[in-house]
């Protein structure tokens, strides 16, 4: 196995252009597992950990530009206020060791339906910035996941960063696992309320071939909030609305039975998580106005 270790972003892109089969490695928490299991036998590893730019986050035109190589641990400690949904998702990932090494860029590139960053990024309307020697382009995260563990990236491209606009309203993230830590999602749900745009972001993980949004649920809720003037009044959310929202989120899934859970459970769990998450988010939204 060959090992390339570029120290600048330009070198990294050149290396990837020269060796499109090279497997990039960031935290290695997916790559090394793949190698250990014999699923992955890369002829060439492209180590991105020396590229300092990837490990930085900045604020560009009001949005956070999160370098692909920023670890979950740093998302939690440094960005909990600016990217609350993603930070909550990060908190559910693996163990302290995995959160120290694992990166959002790695999660995106793996594009697993169970990746925890995805529902949070989908709900927040994130945009993925990918680059190659040909230049860079921005892919709305909604268009990023194209199949089971497949993404819209080309072979010569690398992920540079992900752009997330800080929230104008509350966000939540919930995940079901069959133990209380260090577990792959059986089903996951991300929620973002966008009062500035009067829209809702709702997305699910581990319950379809790709992470996906729940458009019918989003539109239903935004419509209900509009119609009842709830964005402005911040009055109590009718229980029936929360319940219906949960049902619509569940309906957006197309889960399977597997070793981790049944399709029926996944649907059920999504409806409960979505209902509860909305209830918490709405409570936060109401509390905000009271200056809490």
């Amino acid at each position, binding site marked *: 196995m060959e090992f390339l270790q570029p120290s600048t972003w330009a070198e990294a892109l050149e290396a990837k252009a020269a060796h499109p089969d090279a497997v990039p490695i960031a935290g290695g928490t997916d790559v090394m597992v793949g190698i*250990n*299991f*014999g699923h992955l036998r890369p002829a060439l590893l492209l180590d991105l950990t020396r590229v300092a730019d990837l490990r930085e986050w900045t604020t560009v035109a009001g949005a956070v530009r999160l370098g692909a190589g920023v670890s979950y641990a740093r998302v939690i400690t440094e960005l909990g206020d600016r990217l609350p949904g993603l930070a*909550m998702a990060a*908190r*559910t990932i693996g*163990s302290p060791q995995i959160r120290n090494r694992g990166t959002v860029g790695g999660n995106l590139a793996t594009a697993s339906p169970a990746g925890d960053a995805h529902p949070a990024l989908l709900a927040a309307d994130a945009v993925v910035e990918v680059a190659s020697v040909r230049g860079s382009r921005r892919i709305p995260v909604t268009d990023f996941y194209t199949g089971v563990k497949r993404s819209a990236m080309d072979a010569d491209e690398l992920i540079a960063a992900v752009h997330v606009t800080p929230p104008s309203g509350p966000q*939540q*993230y*919930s*995940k*079901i*696992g*069959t*133990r*209380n*830590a*260090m*577990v*792959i999602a*059986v089903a996951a749900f991300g929620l973002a309320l966008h009062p500035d745009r009067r829209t809702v972001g709702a997305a699910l993980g581990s319950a379809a071939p790709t992470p996906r949004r729940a458009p019918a649920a989003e539109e239903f809720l935004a419509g209900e909030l509009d119609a009842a003037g709830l964005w402005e009044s911040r009055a109590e959310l009718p229980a029936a609305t929360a319940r219906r929202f949960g049902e619509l989120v569940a309906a957006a899934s197309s889960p399977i039975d597997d*070793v*981790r*859970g*049944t399709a*029926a*459970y996944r*649907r*059920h*769990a999504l409806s*409960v*998580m979505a209902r*509860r998450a909305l209830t*918490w988010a709405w409570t936060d939204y109401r509390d905000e106005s009271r200056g809490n």
Partner: protein
Amino acid sequence: MSTPTRTPTGAPAHLTGPGSGGVGDSAQRPDGVLKVRGEFAYGSDLWMEDMLWGVTLRSPHPYARVLAIDTSAATQLPGVHAVLTSEDVPGEKVYGLELADQPVLAVDVVRYQGEPVALVAADHPDTARRAAALIRVDYEVWEPVTDARTALGHPATDAVHESDAEVTELSRESAHLHPEGNLVRHLKVRTGDPQPTADVVVVGEYEVGMQDQAFLGPESGLAVPADDGGVELYVATQWLHVDQRQICSALGLPPEQVRLTLAGVGGAFGGREDLSMHVHACLLALRTGKPVKMSYNREESFFGHVHRHPATMRYEHGATRDGQLVYVKASIWFDGGAYASSTPAVVGNGGTMGIGPYVVPNVHVDCYGAYTNNPPCGAMRGFGSVQTAFAYESQMDALAAELGMDPVELRCRNAMEQGSATPTGQVIDSPAPVAELLRRLEAMPLPAEADGEVDLRDMPGGVSNTTHGEGVRRGVGYAVAYKNVAFSEGYDDYSTARVRLEVVGGEPTATVHTAAAEVGQGLVTVEQQITRTELGVEQVTVHPKDTTVGSAGSTSASRQTYVTGGAVKAACEAVRGQLLARAERLVGRSVPDLRLAGGQVVSDAEEIAVPLADLLGNEAVEETVQWRHRPTEAIDPETGQGFAHVQYAFSAHRAVVDVDTELGLVKVVEMACTQDVGKAINPQAVIGQIQGGTAQGLGLAVMEEILIRDGKVVNPSFTDYLIPTILDMPPMRVEVLEYADPHAPYGLRGVGEAPNISSGPAVLAAIRAATGLPLARVPVRPEHLTGTS
């Protein structure tokens, strides 16, 4: 996290800090610092210059005929030194712990997925793996038999509904997985009235999934060919001598030429009682003339050792209206998988102790062990008693509910005590404080209900943020269990200890040499403690565990502190006898109160104090002793009656569990345990065993299961075979009772298994209490709690 150990009088015993280092002290482990620093060498760390790596090719099919094996491509790969199949096994081609029925390498037929078919040795592990992939095996694939009851011709579906399942033509044809049929053992217990009746009757069917030992150190060892044509094997195992016997038989070599030394063991729990890579590495080493290392990876480890028997159980309990048990009828089916392993003994335990620590006048138990094409099952901590405890304790709760009686009260009313007869007609002749264990649990304060600020870590689902209290209901459950200690049913159970005392650098120093496997439990510490106490010296060296001393028996059945501890004590006594005799010769008369203390021979009455250094000079005193516990006897094949077990261990648990009833997620809030250990030789190690056993029982109750579809394992990794994390295993309250067993050394009782047995049923009871659901199967999954299976 836990309260200090307590004696029955409530006096706290110190757990840490400097003590004498003798019996009753929480002496430090000799291997402790190395392990904490990550410097301890485990079997997988073994290394020799010039060694080769051995790899196993395994069957992808649970049941198939092997039509042909073509090794030519593998042999030709550069770097490959040997490719072996069953034809290369020089001795007996089958082996086994109790019955020799398991091929060293597949002969004609494979009976489970993962069965070893061929071996490769190469100069690099990757080369060996690639070569193994080049071996062509042609299989004629057969339909596997995957249900124990079907395998035995019993209706496969539950007897409660009386539906007869079809025995298909194919399964009938393939039904004989072994020449003598699919029944490994049928144990019957019959006592009292065969047709009893009772006021109140409760019937239940229960199922326990297949648990794995999940030890962290995978199977590994290093075989080194020796000049005498024999082989030295360094291996992580549980019983060197039983390995040696089986290896000799497969290699066709005498014991003198097969020498074993224990390598660092990273956990065992029963999973290392059977051979894994032992014979394979020796075969490759003898063939190539080079040292050969084999070390399984995690996935292979799931196929490389036996698991806990899954069980299906039907129970009927009859009682009077005031809660006196009148009868218990039980049918217990253990799925032994493809080979016998220790299924006969597991059936022995499941059957003889299958109704729990209760006094019942009329008992009718049938316990079966079957061959199927599922992975072989054998020893695992709790050994046949874990499964039945789920059933009998569930029954006790169901009966209490039926009677409108408190479940602890019902248990206490029927609890065994010293002098009670077991269903096998054995009168319990040492303390059996079953009721006291339960009453003490009941008296412990309950953990506080959550209030105020929500800490997600305390919630079902943890930081995954699934509830802030919504849907959460708390339940409390109790369970009590008992388990035999040491080998039973007439087995000649002994251990051998060699103790040597000499002066090293002016200090009297003892060396204790046994073949007893240290698997993480701390036996090496116990050996040192006993030697210190018996010989009155501080310096005790533990000799490496090997086959140059006689057998110690297995590190299993909660027996080593009892049996090897007993052997070390007896060897020390023999050494002491010699020393005192020497001292008497020195002073020229007999001195009745002579004893060893502080490195001296002393007499208080005659104010004698002879330093051992002076008494011994350059000489050493050495004694080797074979020690046995009092014999047990075989049970009657028709009635199960007999003095089957030498000692019983008793423990009880109270579980407090929060369940998110809407999502089906569980948070165990607290586990409390009471256990009678007779005498805590090392109190801290006792607490460690109780906490570890509790965690493993909790794991089976709520998450640990090897899932099998059509005979194939679908979750052979720690990604999907989940074991409890620190957020799943709560803090514990532990009370340790020390009621001496007059028949055992120091009055001690085996400790390791009992808490593994009572913990899971208590968790299950608590989940039932929280949800009101009947829950007849473990592990309980979120689907079972939400009706979404």
